[in-house]
C-alpha cells in the first residue's frame, strides 16, 4: 500500500502551493540551465504566432457564424472559390502562416540544434557522467580519481545525481532492460535511454538546489516512481563532495561484485 499512503501524503502537504494563482501553476518548472531559455523563447514565439492566427480563425469562425447566419443573410454568395482573388487571398494566408511560423521556427530551431544542443562540448573541463537506466531506478557513475570509467574507483550512486554549476555536463546513457527516458524538467531536456545503444545529452547548470529527475518513457508498472534527485552544488561544494566521495570509494565499492562494473568506455 506504499504508493497509496505516499499519494495521500503528497496531496495533503499542499500548503505553500495552495496559494498559487492559475498563471503560476501552469508555468514550467524553474529553469536552471544555461540554454533552456532557447527552447522556451522559441516556444513563446510560436505561441504568439499561434494565438495571433487562431484569433484570426476565431474571428472568421464566430464572425461569419454571426453575420452570415440564415437570419441575417438570406442570400448566400454563390461561388466555387476558384476566382483569382479568392486564390490570391488563400495563397497570401498560407504563405503568411508558412513564413511567419513554419520557416521562422524551423530556422531558429535548426540553429539552436547545430550551435547548441547537438554541439557537444569537449575537453578536460567537462563533467562526464554515465547513466544506466533500469526498472525502476537510475544509476549514475562518475569516473573517479583516475578519470577512467568502469574502474575500481568509480563513484556509483543510485537515484542521486550531483553536479556543479557553471560547468558543461555531458551525460551518456543506456538502459539495462527496457527503454527509459532521462528527463530533467528544470533543464528542459530529455533523451531516451535504450538497451543496446548509447545516447547522450549535454547541458550547463546555473542555479543550485535540489530538483527532480523523472523517467519519460513508459517502462513498466513502476514507471511513475522512477524518480531521481538532482543536486546542484556550487563549484566549491561539488569539489568537496567529489573529494569526500573519492576518499570513501575504496570502502564503498565491492570490487568482487561484477554488477559494480555496469559502465563502459566513454565514447567521445
Amino acid at each position, binding site marked *: 500500500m506504499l504508493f497509496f499512503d505516499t499519494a495521500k501524503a503528497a496531496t495533503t502537504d499542499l500548503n505553500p502551493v495552495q496559494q498559487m494563482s492559475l498563471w503560476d501553476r501552469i508555468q514550467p518548472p524553474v529553469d536552471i540551465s544555461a540554454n533552456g531559455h532557447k527552447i522556451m523563447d522559441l516556444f513563446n514565439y510560436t505561441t504568439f504566432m499561434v494565438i495571433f492566427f487562431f484569433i484570426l480563425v476565431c474571428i472568421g469562425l464566430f464572425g461569419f457564424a454571426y453575420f452570415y447566419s440564415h437570419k441575417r443573410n438570406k442570400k448566400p454568395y454563390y*461561388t466555387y472559390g476558384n476566382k483569382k482573388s479568392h486564390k490570391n487571398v488563400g495563397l497570401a494566408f*498560407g504563405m503568411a502562416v508558412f513564413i511567419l*511560423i513554419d520557416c521562422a521556427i*524551423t530556422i531558429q530551431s535548426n540553429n539552436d540544434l547545430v550551435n547548441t544542443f547537438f554541439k557537444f562540448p569537449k575537453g578536460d573541463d567537462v563533467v562526464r557522467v554515465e547513466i544506466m537506466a533500469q526498472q525502476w531506478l537510475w544509476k549514475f557513475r562518475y569516473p573517479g580519481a583516475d578519470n577512467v570509467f568502469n574502474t575500481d574507483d568509480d563513484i556509483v550512486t543510485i537515484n542521486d545525481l550531483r553536479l556543479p554549476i557553471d560547468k558543461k555536463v555531458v551525460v551518456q546513457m543506456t538502459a539495462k532492460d527496457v527503454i527509459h527516458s532521462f528527463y530533467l524538467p528544470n533543464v*528542459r531536456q530529455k533523451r531516451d535511454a535504450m538497451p543496446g545503444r548509447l545516447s547522450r545529452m549535454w547541458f550547463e547548470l546555473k542555479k543550485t538546489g535540489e530538483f527532480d529527475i523523472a523517467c519519460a518513457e513508459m517502462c513498466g508498472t513502476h514507471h511513475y516512481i522512477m524518480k531521481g534527485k538532482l543536486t546542484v552544488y556550487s563549484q566549491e561544494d561539488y569539489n568537496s563532495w567529489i573529494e569526500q566521495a573519492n576518499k570513501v570509494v575504496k570502502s564503498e565499492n565491492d570490487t568482487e561484485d561484477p554488477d559494480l562494473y555496469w559502465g563502459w568506455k566513454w565514447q567521445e
Partner: protein
Amino acid sequence: MAFYEQHIHEAPKTFLKKYIFSFDHKVIGKQFLWYGIFFLGVGGIMALMIRWALAFPGVAFPLFGQFLFPETGGVIPPDTYSMLFTLHGTIMIFYAITPILIGCFGNFCIPLMIGARDMAFPSANMLSFWVAVASGVVLLASLFTPLGGAAGGWTSYPTLSTLIGSPGVGQTLWTLAIFILGVSSTMGAINYITTVITLRAPGMGYFDMPLTVWGLWLTAILNAIFLPVLGAGCLLLIFDRVFGTHFFLAGAAATSGNGDPILFQHVFWIFGHPEVYILILPAWGIVSDLLSFFSRKPAFGAKATALSMTSITILSTLVYGHHMFTTSMSPLLTQSFMTLTMTISIPSTVFFFNWLGTIWRGSIRFDSPMLFSLGVLFVFGLGGLTGLYLGTVTTDIYLHDTYFVVGHFHYTMAASVLLGGFAGIYFWMPKMFGVMMNECLAKIHFWITMLGLNGVFMGMLLVGYGGMHRRLYNPFWYEFLQKLIPINTFITWSAILMGFAQFFFLYNFIHALIKGKKAEDNPWNVGTLEWTIPSPAPHYNFKEIPVVKCGPHELGNPLLSEGKDFQYQTEELVKA
C-alpha cells in the same frame, strides 16, 4: 471510364441473411457502427478510470471499483492503470474510430454517394466485418489472461513489449488482435479503392465526388499501403515473443543476439504517422461537405481541398521521424524530419482556409450537423496549431512524452474525429434509419461535449507545458508536479462532464430508433446522390443508376427557380 451497372439482387429474406451475414454495404456499415459504439463506450470508461486515478489517487473508483479490484478496496492498482491507458489508446484508435468513421461511414456513404448499388466486393466486405469481430474477441480475451492485458502503451515499444518487459500472453494476444484487425481493414481498403475507381455513376468525374468520398478514398489508399507495415512489425514482435527470435531484443536483459528495439519504432511510426491521417481524413471530408450544405453555397475551393487532402496523404508518408526526436537519431535525419513535417502546414492551411471560405457570406443554418462541423473547425484549428511545437525539434525535446502531446493528439484526433463522427451520424441518420434525431437534445449534446472536451484537452496542454510527463500512475510523487494537482482535478471533472454529455446522444439515438419522427427523402435539401432515393435507402439503392450532370455542392445558385436553392447532381447545371 466506361460505366458498369451492378445487378439488383433479390432482397434477403431470413433474419440471418438480413442482419447478421448480410452482403449489403448499408447493413455492414451499421454493423460497424454498433461495433464501434460499443468499443467507444469501453474505451471511454477506461479513460474515466484513468482520469479518476490521476485526480483522486488512493480513492476507490465509484460504482464498480469494489467489484473489479477487491484486493485494493476498489482503488485502481498501478499495473491495471498501465493496462488501462494501453487499451484506451488501442481501443479508441482501432476499435472505435476505425469502425465508425471508416467501417460505418465508408461502407454506408461511398456506394450511395457515387451512385452505385453496392461495393465492388460485397463478400469481402462482409468478411472484413467478421474478421474485425474476431479481432475484438481476441483483444477482449487478452484481458482475462493470468497476467492481464497488454500494458506497454498502445505504441507497444520493445523491449517493454517483448518477454523482457511483458511476460504474459496478454501482450501476445494484443499484438495478434491488431494484426487481425489490420487484415480486416486492408480488405476494406482494397474494396473502397476499387469501388471509387470503377463504380462511379456515369458523368461523375473525380472532382464531382463529394469531399466525404475523397476523404474516405484517400484514407483507404493510406490504409492499403501502410497497414501491412504495421502487420510486419506485429509479426516480428510475435515471433520474438513466441518463437525466440531476436529482432527487437537488446541490452543486458536479453540473453543473446543484438536486435534493435528502435527498428520497431521506425516500422511502427512509418505506419503510425499515416495512421493519424487515416483517422482524420474521413472527418475532414465530411466537414468539408457539411459546411457547404448548411451554408447553402458551394464548398469554397472544392478542387483545391481535394488536392490538398491528396498532398497531405502523400506528405504524411515522409514525416514519421518526428515521433522519435528523443531517440538520438543522426542530426541529419532529425533535421530532415523537422523540415518535412513543416511542409504539411501548407496544404493543411489551404483546406482550412477553404472551410472558412465556405461559411463566408453563406446563409448558415445551425442544425446539429452544422454545429458539430463548426466545432471541428474550432478544435482542429487549435489542435493542428499545437502540432507546430511538436514538429520543432528543440521545443519537442521538452514537450515529448508530456501531456502536451496528449492534448495535441486528442484535439486533432479525438475531438475532431468525435465531433466529425457525430456530425455524420446526425446528418445521415435519416438515410440510414429513416428517422430524424431530436434537434434539441442534439444541441445540448453538442454544447456540453464542447465544454467538457475543451476543459479536458486544454487542461492537458497546460499541464504538459508545466512539464507533466505521460503514463504516470501517480504524478504527485514528483515535487515539480505538485502545483498541477488542481488542474488535473479540473481535467477529470471536465472528462466526467464530457462522458455525461454522451447520455444525451445515447438517449436521443435509441429513442429515435424506436419512436423517431419519420424522415423525408431529403430532409436537409442537398443534392448529393444519396438524397435522391427514399429514406431509409432501399436495399438496391438506385432503381435506375443515376446520370450525374453537376457537382455535389450546387447550392445557392441565383439562377435557380423560386423556392429552390439547390440542385440534385442528376440535374443539368442551371447556367445563364
